[in-house]
């Protein structure tokens, strides 16, 4: 129904504004219904202003900024509607160290309400996990999985 969509939309919008500012360490963002009188049909616009910058066309944002903006939206929806399982595959690839740290912190908080399975190459994200599995291919073309502990992971970093 239009009312229910509108209410959920407003919840997601509220979370999105908060999550964006938290992940970017500042700045503002918003979600807007193109035509508020027609919530079930209208387009949903995303507006973003990274810290210190002026309001941006999304196409002018950098690769990393776009990735973090998309993550902000995903995380906002997960806050409003926690899925039992969330799968993120190399979602942190484009983030610099500062953005990555804020991402990992929020990921940890969200994992209290949804189970996260995250494929990553980034050390910061690995260190946030409670369980780490290393996948390798010793035998040609055949995957093997080993469980990795916190000490292994620091040693294993080189190999990765």
């Amino acid at each position, binding site marked *: 129904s239009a009312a229910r969509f509108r209410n959920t939309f407003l919840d997601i919008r509220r979370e999105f504004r908060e999550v964006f500012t938290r992940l970017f360490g500042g700045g503002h963002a918003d979600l807007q219904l193109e035509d508020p009188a027609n919530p079930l049909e209208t387009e949903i616009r995303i507006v973003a202003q990274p810290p210190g910058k002026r309001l941006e066309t999304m196409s002018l944002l950098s690769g990393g900024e776009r990735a973090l903006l998309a993550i902000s939206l995903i995380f906002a929806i997960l806050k409003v509607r926690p899925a039992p399982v969330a799968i993120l595959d190399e979602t942190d690839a484009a983030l610099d160290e500062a953005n990555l740290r804020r991402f990992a912190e929020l990921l940890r908080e969200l994992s209290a309400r949804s189970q*996260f*399975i*995250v494929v990553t190459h980034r050390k910061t994200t690995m260190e946030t996990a409670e369980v780490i599995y290393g996948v390798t291919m010793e035998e040609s*073309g055949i995957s093997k999985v080993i469980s990795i502990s916190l000490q292994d992971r620091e040693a294993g970093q080189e190999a990765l």
Partner: protein
Amino acid sequence: LYIKKLEIFGFKSFANRVELELGPWLTAIVGPNGSGKSNIADAIRWALGADSARLIRGTRMEDVIFAGSDGRKGLGIAEVTVILDNTPGRVPIDFSEIAITRRVYRSGESEYFINKIPCKLRDIQRLLAGTGLGRDGYSVVEQGKIDAILSSRPEDRRAFFEEAC
């Protein structure tokens, strides 16, 4: 509601049987290029009822069966079992643990099981309906697809939100 354990055998690069016990909070999967990390994500989505091979990078459903490598012949069956912790009872059957198994044969024939009882794909989909499991939507971000979330056409973006309502 979360995945306690994952058993993979014959699915994509998993020619040898593999078992992973996942944490209820955050599990990280790491390793070199092409080792099988994304294949694990595919296995989960496949077992939970992804109904299109395209959804997991294949062309036909049999693409998910280990097709052989330098050192090993191809296999005839792919099988993935997802074991759910259903302690709060979010899945509407009277089990605190639910094993969902999906299997496909070279012939293209498929088999499905809930706690070892044979069933149809739609039984799994119905069982999970409303739990948020088995629906990709906003809870799965595939490799390389993070940017697409922003550039998706208006209809796709709506679908994204509607999934949450």
